[in-house]
């Protein structure tokens, strides 16, 4: 019955925010707690309408801190849970993202980016929260950061995001920006059977169950109310979940948690090289993601007209970073110049530079004024100026 | 001023400030105002002034956009 209420297979024309919401429902999300903020509010509003239809719970919290902690609580109780926000809200959620990581609670956080810092320009998109998504919590925590660049990907990567969150038991982030969130595009929804849905592995009741076993990367999940008598704490803890102050226990816990992402990087990494065929050598490789990558694609034609052979390297997953793959592309295409294009003043740029150390290549940066998407023509002119 | 003195009002509209909300129309106890078909340069329909204003200034007081004001004219002056 619930299944009937999910988005039917077919072709749609919808916004990125709606696509994320519908994908979440299909992925099994049955809990949403949020707090309004442009340009993510319509995603929340969609969930407010849709969740009760599929037997799920929607609640608007008194603030973002409440929302993310409710999400973690619901996840602790076994539901797939999600929130959506924009930059200011993500800032407020950072502490809890660390808790989710420490308690190994799956959760999906959508950040529909707008111009920052502070209140910035609420209605216009940007790419200013990239480093915050990766590094915004205190202490060492790993996260998986998805950066869809169109409505179809918003849908597909949301499914992936839930699957990853469940499989690795950690909070993951989906970075949209206003242009993708509010922009409409084509969405093809396959038959539900063709969509791979992962549910977290549940623990069986056994005597001596260790909720934080360290010889498996992702211990099975124990649901409350089943008799596990489980203790979870945001303090550094041992295999039983008890707080400890001990070097080995700390090292064991933190490295295991980090390895969920680090040891799985090959599976998590995702990127596109465009055009995918017809080119075997490129002087310039442009690194871009999200909505900006779309404009880059259009600009490539113009660059070609100016005699510049360029390709786009587009991470779909920003973190873990496709750094090895980036270097491979640099090498296999004989790239002479790497050009990072972001709608911010230099963020992912630093990680690209760190990656390039493995295949030293000159690099350049094109900063696009947050909020103001250039046309392909404007962008290609900017690029030409930087390259010359 | 004697309480029986007859008072009337002359209503002025700063049409650029008006947003056509109709509060003045709604609140006027004498139905002096009504919405017109005229739009201002921001595209808002603005009210029209009819006769009978007694200068109570309710319209002025409750206009949220400082767009309407009333000149109170005392009888004989």
């Amino acid at each position, binding site marked *: 019955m619930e299944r009937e209420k999910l988005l039917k297979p077919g072709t749609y024309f919808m916004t990125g925010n709606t696509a994320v919401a519908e994908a979440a429902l299909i992925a099994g999300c049955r809990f949403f707690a949020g707090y309004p903020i*442009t340009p993510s509010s319509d995603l929340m509003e969609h969930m407010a309408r849709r969740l*009760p239809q599929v037997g799920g719970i929607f609640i608007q919290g008194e603030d973002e801190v409440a929302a993310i902690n409710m999400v973690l609580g619901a996840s602790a109780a076994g539901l797939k849970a999600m929130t959506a926000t924009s930059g*200011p809200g993500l800032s407020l959620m950072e502490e809890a993202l660390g808790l989710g990581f420490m308690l190994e609670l799956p959760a999906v956080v959508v950040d529909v980016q707008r111009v920052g810092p502070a*209140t910035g320009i609420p209605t216009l998109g940007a790419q200013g929260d990239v480093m915050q998504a990766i590094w915004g919590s205190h202490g060492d925590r790993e996260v998986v950061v998805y950066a869809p660049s169109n409505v179809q990907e918003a849908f597909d990567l949301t499914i992936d995001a839930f699957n990853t969150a469940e499989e690795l038991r950690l909070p993951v982030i989906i970075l949209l920006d206003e242009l993708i969130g509010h922009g409409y595009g084509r969405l093809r929804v396959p038959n539900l059977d063709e969509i791979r849905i992962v549910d977290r592995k549940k623990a069986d009741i056994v005597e001596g169950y260790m909720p934080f076993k360290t010889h498996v990367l992702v211990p099975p999940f124990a649901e409350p109310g089943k008799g596990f008598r489980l203790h979870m704490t945001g303090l550094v803890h041992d295999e039983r979940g008890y707080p400890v102050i001990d070097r080995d226990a700390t090292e064991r816990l933190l490295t295991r948690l980090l390895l969920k992402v680090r040891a799985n990087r090959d599976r998590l990494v995702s990127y596109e090289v465009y055009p995918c065929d017809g080119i075997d050598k490129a002087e310039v490789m442009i690194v871009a993601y999200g909505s900006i990558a779309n404009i880059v694609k259009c600009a490539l034609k113009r660059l070609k007209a100016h005699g510049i052979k360029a390709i786009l390297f587009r991470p779909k997953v920003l973190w873990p970073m496709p750094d090895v793959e980036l270097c491979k592309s640099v090498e296999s295409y004989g790239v002479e110049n790497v050009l990072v294009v972001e709608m911010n003043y230099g963020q992912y740029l630093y990680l690209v530079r760190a990656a390039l150390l493995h295949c030293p290549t000159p690099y350049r940066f094109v900063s696009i004024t947050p909020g103001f998407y250039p046309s392909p023509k404007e962008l290609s002119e900017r690029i030409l100026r930087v390259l010359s | 001023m004697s309480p029986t003195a007859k008072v009337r009002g002359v209503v002025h509209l700063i049409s650029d400030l008006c947003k056509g*909300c109709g509060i003045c129309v709604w609140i006027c106890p004498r139905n002096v105002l009504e919405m017109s078909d005229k739009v201002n340069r921001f595209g808002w329909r603005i009210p029209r002034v009819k006769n009978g204003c007694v200068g109570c200034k309710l319209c002025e007081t409750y*206009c*949220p956009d400082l767009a309407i004001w009333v000149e109170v004219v005392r009888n004989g002056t």
Partner: protein
Amino acid sequence: MSSKIELPPTYKDIEDLIRVDRLPTIWCPGCGIGIVLKTLLRAIKKSDIDVDRHVIVSGIGCAGRVSGYVRLDSYHVLHGRAIPFAIGIKLAKPELEVTVVSGDGDIVGIGGNHFIHAARRNHDINVVIVNNMIYGMTGGQVAPTTPRGARTTTTPYGNIERSISIPLLAIAAGATYVARWSVLHVDHMMNSFIKMFRHKGFAVVEILSPCTLFASRNGIELLQLYEILRRKCKIVSNPDPWESHIDIFGDKPIILGEFIEIERPSYEELVWSSIRG
């Protein structure tokens, strides 16, 4: 866009306090916030405090935009954080008269914790809450002040939450001056504003203000909301804060009035006297 707009002569008294070059405001047609704005400015003019000593702080939201239209030292800070920012100013410069003007969601939603603790400590600041019973700026989501049953974009099936009473919460937390009016009660509002400037301590004035979004989400016209206020508001002297919950679509009257006015040393008095003493 707004070149050469001039205010009517009847606003000459407050013309110097308005950023006329920014008019018309961004507010929707008929939005009550404009009435609060002009009443506040008139009260500032009538206060015995030099206008240059007045400071306005607001958070984010439609009501929070007030700070941008006043020609006064004014700060438009983070959503929910106007009160701590204002406290910082007041503690640093006690000679300033610091007034927070912001929305219901901003002050008692996300900012609720600052609100109750500022009331408790009796900080000598003023808080004007424009209560439109909804999150206006973000497009009409449920607020802590939204009446039960009301429809908003996040309560498409009707709100199941009880709405908060701002006067009751304020008094329970420790505020020393608390009043509630609607935008249809301009004289009372003005009077309360002047009182709150004089008051030494945490002063809260809640103003009920009709909102287009609240109306349309609930299938009525904005002017019908004004009509409801006109019909249902009842001014009570010494009103009982326990009776102050707002039942906008029901039969019960909406209680207005001055809920409390007491003296208790403000935090600023105490802290400054301890430093000077």
